[in-house]
């Protein structure tokens, strides 16, 4: 078996609390040694002076669009995008076409992943049939087919009684329900956060309470049922407060925040850039501050991208008519690293939010540099300055709100199971 030694890097392993200059050795597909000045021969030595070595990132919220919308993204291109962003595990959302509400679709996605994916793909199945929020999907059969969690995502389950049964049933089969909390009636025609910027642009707004009333409902239902609830892409300060309180009270709740909600606020909609349109919308600077605080104090468990590719022609329309969503796999890292530079997070905490903590939410067993674990790794150049450009993105879609931005920090090399799936050539810096 091939032995690869990575030396000179600052090694960050949140599962062991390690932040130290250590060498790491890969033998075949697994991590075979971690330590100071490893001895023995290696077939290949990667010199990683000035770089960070971390477990590959884990994304709990990825829209890979296959089957059905391959013009936006495919399992192949979406996972290439993941690898380029340092992710080695992604969880594919259920709103494909056909919807992933049957074991056949789950099995199809897993087969296509085996055949074409650059990184590990886990499957999230629909919580209700057809994402209609009425009849629950065949959750036990879906679990047996490989579904790691259940979610209707943006097709919010508006009926509280249905949501209650979904939570109960998922609890019974040992699976977490992921909730996109947004009251669709309260949101109404809203396409952006309701506030002065929406008013100025004449765009229909959706108040932060469209999210927080649903967070309140779902926290109560999680308490009622004892089920594990994961709240997707928290965007509002009030939601953070309620999740914090619920955690203190022992409710089994976890939560994620997207890089774009950590980086941007509603001012970004000025000029009607449809790449600033997503659900939930970008909110106020005060909300953004609460999200950063929540991530730092652990109320929010992890960062998840909500990578949502759309074709250029779909976004090149009037703001109200454009689809919600932005791509995010390739720009997540520098946004989280910005919090490290601002001393909001330690380097180890930042890596934790991208690796161990998301893996723990769904019990995925990824996100570690332990000896014997699969060699899912990323080398990070924390000082690399780069510009986000459409042609530089590996995703098939380019709908990023960060096009033209200069970022600091980039994944330079990514391994999945000991195999290099992304290597940044020096030219493309």
């Amino acid at each position: 078996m091939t032995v690869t030694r990575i030396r000179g890097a600052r090694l960050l392993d949140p599962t062991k609390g390690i932040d130290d200059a250590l060498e790491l050795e890969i033998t075949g597909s697994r991590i075979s040694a971690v330590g100071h000045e490893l001895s023995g021969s290696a077939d290949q030595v990667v010199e990683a002076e000035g770089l960070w070595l971390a477990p590959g990132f884990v994304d709990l919220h990825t829209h890979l669009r296959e089957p059905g919308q391959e013009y936006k993204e495919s399992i192949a291109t979406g996972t290439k995008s993941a690898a380029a962003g340092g992710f080695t595990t992604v969880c594919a959302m259920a709103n494909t076409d056909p919807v992933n509400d049957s074991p056949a679709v789950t099995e199809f996605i897993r087969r296509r992943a085996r055949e074409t994916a650059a990184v590990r793909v886990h499957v999230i199945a629909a919580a209700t049939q057809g994402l209609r929020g009425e009849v629950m999907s065949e959750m036990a059969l879906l679990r047996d087919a490989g579904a790691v969690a259940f979610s209707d995502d943006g097709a919010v389950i508006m009926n509280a009684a249905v949501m209650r049964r979904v939570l109960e049933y998922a609890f019974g089969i040992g699976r977490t329900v992921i909730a996109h909390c947004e009251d669709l009636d309260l949101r109404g025609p809203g396409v952006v956060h309701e506030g002065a910027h929406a008013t100025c642009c004449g765009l229909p707004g959706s108040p932060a309470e469209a999210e927080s009333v649903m967070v309140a409902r779902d926290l109560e239902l999680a308490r009622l049922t004892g089920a594990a609830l994961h709240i997707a892409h928290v965007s509002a300060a009030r939601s953070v407060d309620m999740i914090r309180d619920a955690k203190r009270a022992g409710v089994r709740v976890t939560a994620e925040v997207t890089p774009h909600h950590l980086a941007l606020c509603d001012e970004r909609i000025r000029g009607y850039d449809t790449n600033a349109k997503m659900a939930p919308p970008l909110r106020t600077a005060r909300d953004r501050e609460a999200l950063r605080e929540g991530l730092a104090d652990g109320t929010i468990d992890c960062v998840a991208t909500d990578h949502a590719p759309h074709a250029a022609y779909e976004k090149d329309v009037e703001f109200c008519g454009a689809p919600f969503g932005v791509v995010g796999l390739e720009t997540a890292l520098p946004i989280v690293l910005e919090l490290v530079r601002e001393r909001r997070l330690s380097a180890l905490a930042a890596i934790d939010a991208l690796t161990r903590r998301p893996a723990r939410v769904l019990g995925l067993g990824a996100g570690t540099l332990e000896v014997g674990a699969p060699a899912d790794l990323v080398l990070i150049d924390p000082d690399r300055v780069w510009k986000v450009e459409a042609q530089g993105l590996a995703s098939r879609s380019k709908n990023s709100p960060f096009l033209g931005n200069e970022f600091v920090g980039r994944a330079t090399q990514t391994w999945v199971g000991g195999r290099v799936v992304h290597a940044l050539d020096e030219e493309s810096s």
Partner: protein
Amino acid sequence: MKQLLDTETPSREELERILDTTEAMLEISQRDIKKVPTLRGRTVINMFLEPSTRTRVSFEIAAKRLSADAINVTASGSSLSKAETLSDMARNLSAMQADVLVVRDRNAGVPAMLARHLSIPVINAGDGNHEHPTQALLDAFTIRQAFGNIEGRVVSIIGDVAHSRVARSNIHALTKLGAEVRIAGPPTMIPVGVEQFGVKPCTSIDEALDGAHVVMMLRIQMERLEGALFPSVREYASTWGLSRERLRLARPDAVVLHPGPVNRGVEIQSEVADAEPSRILDQVTNGVATRMAVLYLLTGDSQ
């Protein structure tokens, strides 16, 4: 100025330049032969993708009085009904060497989006609930005509501010030109964060009218909003409608404006709409002159 997408962006000086130019254009409209060769050989495309009579005709007359060729495109007769995208259509029109695009659309931000695709000037003739800059300019001109200046005048904008592009454009323009702007309407029709634009929200029509120089009544969309944002037309008319009696709360020399079309007996009683303080028809006359001024400044020799 290269565009007129809103009144939020232009400076006070730019707005005043348009008002001053409007003065000269108004004079042309009062001549026997209401036509000057200023824009001869220029092509103005009026792309009205939302039904409109007054604004479309006003722009068309304005273009023709300046001797430009005006082409009207409407949604139903256009290739947009064949699912061509807006940006493709605009690029095609521009490839036909048009000199200026006037656009009205029911979606906020469409003129801004088209402006990004095009190299010719774009004039916003009303986009969704966003802005209607030429309406605000003609309102400002009408106020200046009535009082000699705008600085320090109290302007009360009353009605559905949330769904009014006219209100937004007037708020930006009039506050910039030195007026004191008040807004009033049912709380369900007052947009979030509006106080950040330097206006004073009032809780009743009486409070808004008290000592006002200008009373600007907004049209309410009865069909769409009755039941959702206010309980009934009857209740709206009695709580927020402008009657002769109520108007007495304003200054004796106050003028009444309305962007039209008027819902008689709803936001305004006929006795007010048709009486002396009403400047509603002056607004329409001034609208042509204002649009002539804007077309001239964006496409004329001044470039």
